[in-house]
C-alpha cells in the first residue's frame, strides 16, 4: 500500500513484517511460493520476490507447486538478480519450512483463518482493508486521545 509506506513507514512511525500463512488446502502452490520468498530473503530480495510472486499468480504463471512452478520461480530468481542455484537448493531442501510452519502456528494461535490479516501492535485486523482503516488505528496508537 503506497500511501501507508510513504506516510507511515518512510517517516519511521510504522514497521511492517511479513509472515506466512499459506492456505494450503485451497492454494496448493502457496507453500512453495512462501519458500521461494523466504529463500530470496537469504539473498536480500524478499520484497522483490514477493512482488514478483503476486504478479505471477495474477497472470497465472504458476499454480500448484509443481516442478514447472519451481522452474518458474527459478526464472523469477534469475530475473531479480539472485543466485539461481543457491535459490533452488534452498527451495528444494525446504530450508525455511520450519519458519513457515512457525508463522502458520502463530497465525492459528492468534485466531487468524484467512488472508490477508494484520496484527497492529497486538490488535487483529482481518481482510484487505482501505488505507483509512489503517490510519484510524495507527493514529490512535501514535497519539492516544
Amino acid at each position: 500500500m503506497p500511501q501507508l509506506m510513504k506516510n507511515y513507514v518512510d517517516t519511521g512511525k510504522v514497521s511492517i513484517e511479513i509472515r506466512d500463512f499459506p492456505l494450503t488446502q485451497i492454494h496448493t502452490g502457496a507453500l512453495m511460493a512462501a519458500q521461494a520468498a523466504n529463500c530470496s530473503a537469504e539473498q536480500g530480495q524478499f520484497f522483490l520476490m514477493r512482488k514478483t510472486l503476486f504478479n505471477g499468480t495474477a497472470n497465472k504463471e504458476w499454480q500448484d507447486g509443481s516442478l514447472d512452478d519451481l522452474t518458474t520461480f527459478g526464472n523469477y530468481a534469475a530475473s531479480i538478480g539472485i543466485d539461481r542455484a543457491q535459490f533452488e537448493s534452498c527451495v528444494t531442501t525446504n530450508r525455511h519450512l520450519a519458519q513457515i510452519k512457525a508463522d502458520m502456528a502463530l497465525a492459528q494461535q492468534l485466531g487468524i483463518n484467512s488472508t490477508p490479516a494484520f496484527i497492529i501492535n497486538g490488535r487483529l485486523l482481518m481482510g484487505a482493508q482501505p488505507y483509512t482503516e489503517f490510519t484510524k488505528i495507527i493514529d490512535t496508537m501514535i497519539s492516544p486521545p
Partner: protein
Amino acid sequence: MQRFLPFWLGLLLLSLVACGFAPGSTTSTPNDTSLLSERTPNPRMIGDANAPVKIIEFSDYQ
C-alpha cells in the same frame, strides 16, 4: 631452494583458498538455519525496527 619459496607459498595459498580455509573466509548464508524472524536485521521487515507501531502482515501468495 630459496628462490622456489614464493612458488611453494603461492601453491599453499591456492590450496587453502580451494579448501575454503583462506584467511577471512566466512560461513555463507545458506548454512544459517535460524528463523528469518529472529535474524537482525529481519529480512522480511521494512521500516524502522524501533517504530512505535509494528504491523505484522500474514499473507498467502495465491
